[in-house]
């Protein structure tokens, strides 16, 4: 075995790279057991290798990050052929625009927050429990029996998140969006603070509807756009471009 400094370092590097024969490896490990300086040098070389791997991973993620951000922010480009088709279509569409415009105007002026709310609202159904009534809270029982006023009376502020959610839903059923907003916001805050996600998707969707009913269109839009951007969101499919357009229209009116 080469005992010169460079020779030893070379051996350590080959050891690190898994290039030593079994005999060389055993001999080096025996020496490492008793040579503190050699142990230190090996530790530093391992650290150097780890630093390279850290750098490599970060660079790879940074590269993908740049691509993904570009993709997300890329303006929609229209190709030459499509442009020609569009030009042709414009002349055809011009005559249609007047008719569509009239229909849109009718829709626009007949649009109301309660209509948008009703079109998108579905009562929240609790899953059937196997354990019978003993397993469900009094709030849940009241909700199941559609005693919405009873639900809102039963829950103290410190109730669990599921009960809080049912309170929010009950207020929506009772056409009291302001109180529903308050209940749902408590869930969002608690999840935010705890890092949890209990009924988060459900809460975000119904909170958005409550905002619409309460004419808080900016808040509603913020949530709807968030849901729309998240394909994994439970309510992603329910938030259509049409719904977002309708809320924007309500805001402009």
């Amino acid at each position, binding site marked *: 075995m080469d005992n010169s400094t460079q020779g030893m370092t070379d051996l350590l590097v080959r050891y690190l790279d898994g290039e030593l024969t079994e005999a060389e490896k055993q001999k080096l490990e025996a020496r490492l057991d008793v040579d503190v300086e050699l142990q230190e040098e090996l530790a530093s070389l391992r650290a150097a290798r780890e*630093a390279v791997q850290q750098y490599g991973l970060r660079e790879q993620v*940074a590269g993908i990050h740049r691509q993904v951000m570009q993709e997300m922010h890329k303006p929609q480009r229209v190709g030459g052929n499509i442009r020609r088709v569009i030009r042709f279509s414009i002349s055809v569409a011009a005559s249609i625009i007047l008719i569509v415009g009239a229909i849109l105007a009718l829709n626009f002026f007949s649009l109301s927050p309660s209509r948008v709310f009703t079109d998108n609202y579905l009562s929240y159904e609790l899953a059937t429990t196997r354990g019978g009534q003993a397993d469900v809270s009094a709030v849940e029982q009241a909700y199941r029996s559609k005693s919405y006023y009873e639900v809102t009376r039963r829950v103290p502020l410190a109730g669990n998140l599921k009960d809080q959610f049912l309170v929010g839903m009950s207020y929506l059923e009772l056409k009291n969006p302001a109180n529903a907003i308050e209940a749902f916001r408590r869930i969002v805050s608690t999840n*935010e*603070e705890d*890092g949890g996600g209990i009924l988060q998707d459900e809460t975000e969707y119904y909170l958005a509807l409550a905002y619409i009913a309460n004419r808080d269109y900016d808040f509603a839009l913020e949530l709807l756009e968030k849901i729309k951007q998240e*394909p994994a969101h439970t309510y992603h499919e329910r938030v259509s471009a049409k719904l977002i357009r309708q809320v924007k229209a309500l805001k402009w009116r």
Partner: protein
Amino acid sequence: MELSKTLSDSALVESIRSGQNIEPAIRSMYRDYFGTLSWYVLNNNGTQQDAEDIFQEIVVRFIELVQKNKFRGESTVKTFLFSLARHTWLNELKRRGRAWAREEKFENAQDHSAPDTSYLIADREARLEIIKLVGELGENCRTILLLYYYENKSMKEILQLMHYENEQVVRNKKYKCLKQLEEMIRERPFLKQTLINLLHG
């Protein structure tokens, strides 16, 4: 280019752990979690750039943890990432010296449901220093070390990619570059210790 299709938690973790399909896994994380987690930063005094930086940071950290078997699936990936993002962002706010009421509230709160990941991001600044240090190597050195130690290329493959005279020249060059980096690290005991800690998880 399209963002990857959504992967289940187990498929995502397996892709990262095997190291074979890491790029689709990263894209899947962007597709599924970037919206929610950047929303959290944006709603807590952060800018779009902050949100992007924090997300990038936690993707790196998550991959390392999975590859070192430190993520055992006790919580969902979403919950785990959210916890990482929250701790990373709160630490960043602290670093910037902002007094933020919510931060106080968070620090005092008992967190029963989310995994405590605060210890996982404690060495963030040291890790950024490490990246800076590797960046200080010459470009050829950096490339040869990355090809060998990160991309697991053989000397023969590196020879083809970098046009050296022969494999022995590549081997010598790699040796000198690693030694140079080792000396740079040895001069910085704090960074060396951080790297040793990372090695041992």
